[in-house]
């Protein structure tokens, strides 16, 4: 076991969680993530292998699927992000690679991103101050890439109208956290 300590995207030893009005903003460094991109002409192989590895079919555009440890959301034609608990899947890329073989290109993405769970009954009021996608109309399992305050990010809907995850480039975690907090305060 190596001896290097990890820090969170916001720079702390522990994940940060804030409650502003009815909204909770929680940093989530405990999810490992890898990208999966279908090799040319290997769609069928990918579908099969993915079903076997994850236990579900890779989701359609704009959607997210999950089962057990695994979740996946669509990111582009023939491309997905796959996530699993960090504690058990820190080496997520080789695990996925092993399952997909040469049918897909797998790239470790865990630390490329900062994940924030935003929850609360008025979370949509907050999100509509931040991003152009219609968060009010998003249903559980909807997942899309968009931008918030000039930052490219993914917005995933976990529970319709209540729970979302915002995933942004790790280096900008502080700016994203600031943007989320300001928006939460303005509706608090």
């Amino acid at each position, binding site marked *: 076991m190596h001896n290097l300590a990890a820090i969170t995207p916001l720079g702390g030893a522990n994940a940060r969680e804030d409650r502003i009005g009815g909204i909770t903003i929680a940093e989530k460094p405990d999810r490992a993530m890898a990208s999966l991109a279908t090799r040319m002409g290997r769609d069928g192989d990918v579908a099969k292998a993915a079903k076997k590895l994850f236990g579900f079919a890779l989701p359609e*555009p*704009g959607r997210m699927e999950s089962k057990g440890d695994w979740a996946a959301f*669509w*990111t*582009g*034609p023939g*491309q997905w992000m796959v996530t699993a608990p960090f504690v058990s899947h820190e080496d997520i890329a080789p695990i996925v690679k092993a399952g997909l073989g040469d049918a897909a290109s797998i790239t470790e993405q865990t630390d490329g991103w900062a994940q924030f769970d935003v929850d609360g009954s008025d979370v949509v009021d907050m999100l509509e101050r931040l991003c*152009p*996608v219609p968060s009010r109309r998003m249903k559980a399992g909807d997942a*899309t*890439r*968009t*931008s918030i305050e000039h930052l*490219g990010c993914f917005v995933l809907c976990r529970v319709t109208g209540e729970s979302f995850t915002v995933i942004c480039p790790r280096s900008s975690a502080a700016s994203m956290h600031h943007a989320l907090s300001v928006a939460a305060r303005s509706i608090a």
Partner: protein
Amino acid sequence: MIINHPLLGPRDSQEFTYLGDASLIDRPDWQAEDAVDRFYDYLYERENPAGEHRELWFHEQGDRSWLVVTRNTLTHEITNVELARDVARARGRGK
């Protein structure tokens, strides 16, 4: 503007980055006799129509697809949106 993404539905054009005329797909043959002339024409000359224009947009804050958008430059009306990869293949581009 709103670009009706073939896979994702309507999206704010602010999520996209614009390149220009879709003829940029038709990159000339480097081994042609008059390759320099062809490349010059390909890269520098534009029809610049006042009306229907096929153009390339990149869904930078989205799924990273390049799209070919058919848009009227007088009214900004968009009549067709295609994945550029499909258009490129249809125009005979491959490997």
